[in-house]
């Protein structure tokens, strides 16, 4: 007899004994006592609205705005719920240039002419009447560098419909209309489902549909924001085209398939919401609607300095956790997190997969209220970009790396910190010296007199080895050379510090 069979047998015996004991000790039910009514299942399929209405495809195209509907929010702030039970939503597809990071102008594909697309806010029982014209063939004023028009579609994860009917791809100039009823609460993704789906999502075709429970959430909050995480996979345009003097970036199909992203962003922007933090006040309760789009990475969402009082996985209060530090979200997973702002400060939203954070998955919740700018800046320990940006893609990469990794110890043009001010560093040191220093500072400190002098000058705090690749070092040098080629006083970094 195998061990598992023995275990099964033992369990069966134990169950039999327990049942017997139960039978012996429990008085028979009184006939006159009515059986307790079974709790109503809020997800009773028989009560859901699944009435199908066939989708309609026409050649009549929308004109005017690319997004329309009272249930749409185009900013992180979630607009209050429109009480109307029928929500008419229009999200047209466009091809446009977006700026993912300073100097990184990317040829994107969009819903509603923005990345991510506008957030839809509705509640269980609402009817969504959706329409979409594929306007990828419309020429954007002054821009000739968008991708060629192509077919697109819309896939709502919040809908229970036949994908063959509703999620059809439509050609440029065509309009598709379909409708559905929202049966489950949640933070749901929508995205283009046209092959190759990976490319369509990675190019920007996604957004969130927030479905509130029929009777609202069980808690009251002071602030509500939408935070959507996604990756971008970009490379400089092989044709070296430029927009406003900046290089055009296009989709990097090879790295896309290997899930080697260039940027990971909140709401489509590198270090999204660092420049424009979400606002809150001490003592307020904040609700964040989170969606990790992917397309290929997970997110460990964390807010430094807080604990999530409540976490509703996929945005459904029936899926509740309490007292969580991070929320792990796979691609196309959502959640609602709520937390109290304990005191004045800036609370850092971060993907605790720090490789993702270093690619830009950072943001701030500003609860400083009346704090002085100096106090604010002291907390902004990451990457406030300088106003000017180089146009060499390698120098842009060096700049972004510098702002992500070096600002805690160095400045450009703002004086000494833990380490030297790097303004003029390419005039003070040769490229060869800088290469060796960045590659292996500990080796330099063994033998190089200048390195030893630096160590002494900076209180014997050594420069840590950052394990930089030769390519990364090249990018840093290109950035430093660009800085030193700019007019005196025109370039300086943010006041970062840890």
């Amino acid at each position, binding site marked *: 007899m195998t061990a598992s069979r023995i275990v099964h047998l033992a369990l069966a015996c134990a169950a039999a004994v327990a049942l017997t004991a139960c039978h012996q000790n429990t008085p028979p039910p009184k006939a006159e006592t009515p059986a307790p009514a079974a709790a109503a299942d809020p997800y009773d399929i028989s009560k859901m609205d699944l009435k199908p209405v066939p989708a309609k495809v026409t050649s009549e*195209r929308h004109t005017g705005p690319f997004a329309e509907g009272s249930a749409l929010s185009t900013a992180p702030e979630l607009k209050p719920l429109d009480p109307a039970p029928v929500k008419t939503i229009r999200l047209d597809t466009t091809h446009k240039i977006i700026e993912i990071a300073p100097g990184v102008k990317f040829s994107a594909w969009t819903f509603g002419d923005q990345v991510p697309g506008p957030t839809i806010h509705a509640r269980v029982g609402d009817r969504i009447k959706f329409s979409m014209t594929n306007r990828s063939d419309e020429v954007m004023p002054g821009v000739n560098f968008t991708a060629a028009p192509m077919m697109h579609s819309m896939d709502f994860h919040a809908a229970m419909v036949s994908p063959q009917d509703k999620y*059809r*791809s439509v*050609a440029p*100039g065509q309009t598709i209309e379909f409708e559905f009823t929202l049966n489950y609460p949640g933070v749901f993704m929508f995205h283009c489902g046209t*092959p*190759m789906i990976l490319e369509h999502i990675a190019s920007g075709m996604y957004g969130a549909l927030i479905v509130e429970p029929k009777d609202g959430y069980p808690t009251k909050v002071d602030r509500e924001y939408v935070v959507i995480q996604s990756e971008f996979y970009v490379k400089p345009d092989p044709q070296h085209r430029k927009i406003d003097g900046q290089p055009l970036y296009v989709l990097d199909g090879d790295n896309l398939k290997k899930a080697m992203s260039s940027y990971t962003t909140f709401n489509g922007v590198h270090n999204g919401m660092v420049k424009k933090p979400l606002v809150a006040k001490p003592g307020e309760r904040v609700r964040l609607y989170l969606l990790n789009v992917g397309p290929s990475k997970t997110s460990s969402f964390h807010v430094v300095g807080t604990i999530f009082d409540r976490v509703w996985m996929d945005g459904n209060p029936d899926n509740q956790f309490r007292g969580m530090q991070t929320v792990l979200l796979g691609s196309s997973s959502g959640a609602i997190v709520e937390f109290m702002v304990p005191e004045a400060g800036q609370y850092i939203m971060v993907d605790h997969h720090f490789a993702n954070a270093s690619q830009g998955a950072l943001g701030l919740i500003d609860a400083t209220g009346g704090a002085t700018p100096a106090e604010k800046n002291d907390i902004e320990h990451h990457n406030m970009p300088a106003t000017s940006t180089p146009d060499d893609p390698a120098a842009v990469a060096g700049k972004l790396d510098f702002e992500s990794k070096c600002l805690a110890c160095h400045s450009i043009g703002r004086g000494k910190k833990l380490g030297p001010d790097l303004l003029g560093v390419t005039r003070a040191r040769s490229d060869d010296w800088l290469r060796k220093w960045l590659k292996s500072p500990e080796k330099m400190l063994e033998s190089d007199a200048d390195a030893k002098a630096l160590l002494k000058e900076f209180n014997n705090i050594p420069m840590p080895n950052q394990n930089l690749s030769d390519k990364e070092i090249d990018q840093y040098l290109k950035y430093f050379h660009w800085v030193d080629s700019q007019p005196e006083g025109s370039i300086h970094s943010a006041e970062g510090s840890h």
Partner: protein
Amino acid sequence: MRAVLRALTCSAALYAGAAGACGHCVEDKVASVYDYAVASRAFSQKQQVAFFGIDGALVVNDDSRRALEGVARGVAGVDPDSLRVSLDTASLSIAFDPRRTGFAALQKALEKRLASRHLTLLPMKVMDAPATLKAAPQ
């Protein structure tokens, strides 16, 4: 084996589409070989664009790609350069001049060239103007 399975899956999906139950699959296949530039050029020359699924044991490799990309050479009434092929979705599209050949004749001519590979074509859609995707003649 995997290629065969993929081809069989695609074939099944296409047959379902032909029966009116799998428009999604058909339109996705169309999307994978839709080329806006080809379509625009075709319409300006009063041509149409035909979209076909490829039925049979399509092996996904460079040899198949080359063979399929050359299949339109010498076919009357078509522009061979307009041919677009997707091995992943087992589909192809091509512009043709309806004044010189009909949809059925085009299909027959292309299938003749695919016969040695035991592949046939399944009509999906035809475009004769911008923003129109019509059911292909069966």
